[in-house]
């Protein structure tokens, strides 16, 4: 366990370092922020002063080196546009995105696993086929379109749920959250559902395939031969086996949920980091984009680590020490 953690930490540092170079060079290639940031009417001396202040006159390697030294001191740079530390701006917006992502994954699990098990137990029934048809739609319809349709149906036509924003928030463990107020809940439901659809379809497929395979195993027949009730056979013997792939895949996908949140946040005007990223790219706000990407990579690394630990807890045959880190 300790060896595993240390190995994983070292690898993470290397990944982060390589990532930082790629991100920095990539953003450098996109465009010159000077064109956007500096008032064209300002005189040459003023323009050059700004360029020098932002450090944009130096060669790219020097800029990268300055950036790296700052990062090692915990400073991810200052947003060109907001004139505030990039990290601070991101952290301010992060709870909204995390709340949305966790809500989406939660919905995917709560709806996806039972639906997948039912589809796996009765693959030829109308309900089993219906669930599978639904999951195909969830896979293939584009997120932004479904989002717009949800708004059209539930907000515009039926008027049941609000179409944008976070609604009322309350402080919870030091951050502002929506899910603890009724108004916030009504606001988060549609975007979370929208973001969940793709993962839900994935969970349905994994749970269905797992259920079909596990149901044929001798140990299920043996469990039934012990006289266990169907509830126990399915709720314990089947569920525990199918949870292994579901948790693994979903855990790894949590990162991509955060990445996909960019679309959902834009459609539902959800004030999270996804929307922030889109705005920053539009403004060529380099420090903010770089900080966002590095944050996301760090998050992926942490998530993978947690998933591996969860996986070893769920499947007794896996020991962390044996696992390739």
């Amino acid at each position: 366990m300790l060896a595993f953690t240390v190995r994983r930490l070292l690898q993470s540092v290397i990944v982060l370092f390589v990532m930082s170079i790629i991100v920095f060079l990539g953003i450098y290639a996109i465009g010159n922020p000077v064109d956007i940031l500096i008032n064209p009417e300002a005189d040459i001396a003023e323009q050059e002063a700004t360029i020098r202040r932002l450090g944009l006159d130096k060669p790219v390697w020097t800029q990268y080196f300055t950036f790296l030294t700052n990062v090692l001191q915990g400073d991810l740079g200052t947003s060109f546009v907001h004139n505030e530390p990039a990290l601070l701006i991101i952290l301010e917006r992060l709870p909204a995105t995390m709340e949305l992502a966790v809500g989406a994954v939660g919905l995917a699990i709560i709806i996806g696993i039972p639906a997948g098990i039912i589809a796996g137990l009765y693959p030829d029934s109308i309900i089993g086929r219906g669930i599978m048809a639904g999951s195909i739609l969830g896979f293939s319809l584009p997120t932004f379109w479904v989002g717009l349709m949800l708004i059209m149906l539930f907000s515009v036509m039926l008027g049941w749920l609000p179409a944008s924003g976070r609604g009322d928030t309350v402080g919870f463990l030091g951050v502002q959250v929506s899910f603890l107020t009724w108004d916030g809940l009504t606001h988060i439901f549609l975007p979370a559902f929208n973001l969940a659809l793709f993962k839900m379809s994935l969970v349905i497929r994994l749970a269905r395939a797992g259920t079909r395979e596990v149901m044929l195993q001798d140990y299920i027949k043996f469990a039934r031969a012990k006289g266990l009730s169907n509830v126990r056979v399915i709720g314990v013997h089947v569920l525990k086996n199918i949870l292994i792939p579901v948790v693994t895949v979903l855990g790894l996908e949590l990162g991509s949920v955060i990445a996909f949140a960019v679309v959902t946040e834009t459609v539902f005007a959800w004030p999270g980091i996804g929307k922030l990223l889109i705005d920053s790219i539009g403004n060529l706000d380099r420090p903010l984009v770089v900080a966002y990407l590095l944050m996301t990579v760090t998050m992926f690394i942490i998530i993978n680590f947690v998933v591996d630990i969860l996986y070893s807890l769920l499947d007794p045959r896996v020991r962390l020490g044996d696992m390739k880190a």
Partner: protein
Amino acid sequence: MTGNEPTLCVENLQTYFYTKSGVIKAVDDVSFTVDKGEVLGLVGESGSGKSVTGFSILGLVDPPGRIAGGRIRFKGHSLTTLPEKEWRNLRGSRISMVFQDPMMTLNPVLRIDTQMIEAVTAHENISRQEARTRARDALGQVGIPSPDERLKAYPHQFSGGMRQRVAFSIALINKPDLIIADEPTTALDVTIQAQILHEAQKLCRDTGTALIWITHDLTVIAGLSDRVCVMYAGRIVEAGGINQVLDTPHHPYTYGLIGSVPSRNKRGAPLAQIAGMTPSLLNLPPGCAFRQRCPRASRACLTEPEIHELKDGRAVRCFHPYEEEATA
């Protein structure tokens, strides 16, 4: 219910699988009884319907299969007319089963104690602690060292032989009246096989538990069972006391089976094999199912032979059975 009621009485059991390509008569007109404390051997080659017979008794035939006819009486009560819930109450408490492959019978992600305790609490309203004590005793009973610690282990931490012992201890935990052992030693090596056989036999003598021992190998049950039923293509073709059947097989199929048992051959002599393959159970041709492989087949065998009762409680389903002098 009288004292000499057999533990299990199967009458004309038919278990069919209704598949898309046709009806598979996996078990067709099978009858036998098992008395208290008796060991009945059920022998036949792969696909002859032994396991399906066992699952029928437990009420665990998977769709598209179902019991299409016949009766199963357990201690005087009819099982086939029982509501599913009551049949389930008998499973694992009064009738239990041990499967062929010990590597596959235990759930890999649940600890042994979970899998043992649930077998008790499914049938009895007792505390987890009591159930746990009983699980520990059951593990000790089948010869697993330091059962208290082993309860906390997962199946993959046991060897195959040990896993089969665990499976047996689960089957025994509620002191059933009948155990169906479906080739439980086939996957194990010979020494462990002998140990488990010996212990199973002792158990039946001591507790009066009836045992159905399913196998495709006659030698396995030679020293174990009292009576034997030989199955072929879903039917019983010969039945009788184990020693009589081994000494003077009447049915050509049994005769061939014994011929193919190594220990009964002269040392160095080539093994006799039964030529041909088990016929497909789908669209069995009319007449005796063994016809294509039978050295004694005649025109008469184009019609279906009935099972004949002989003396000494023996029975055979054949038009031209071997007589006693035929086996020298």
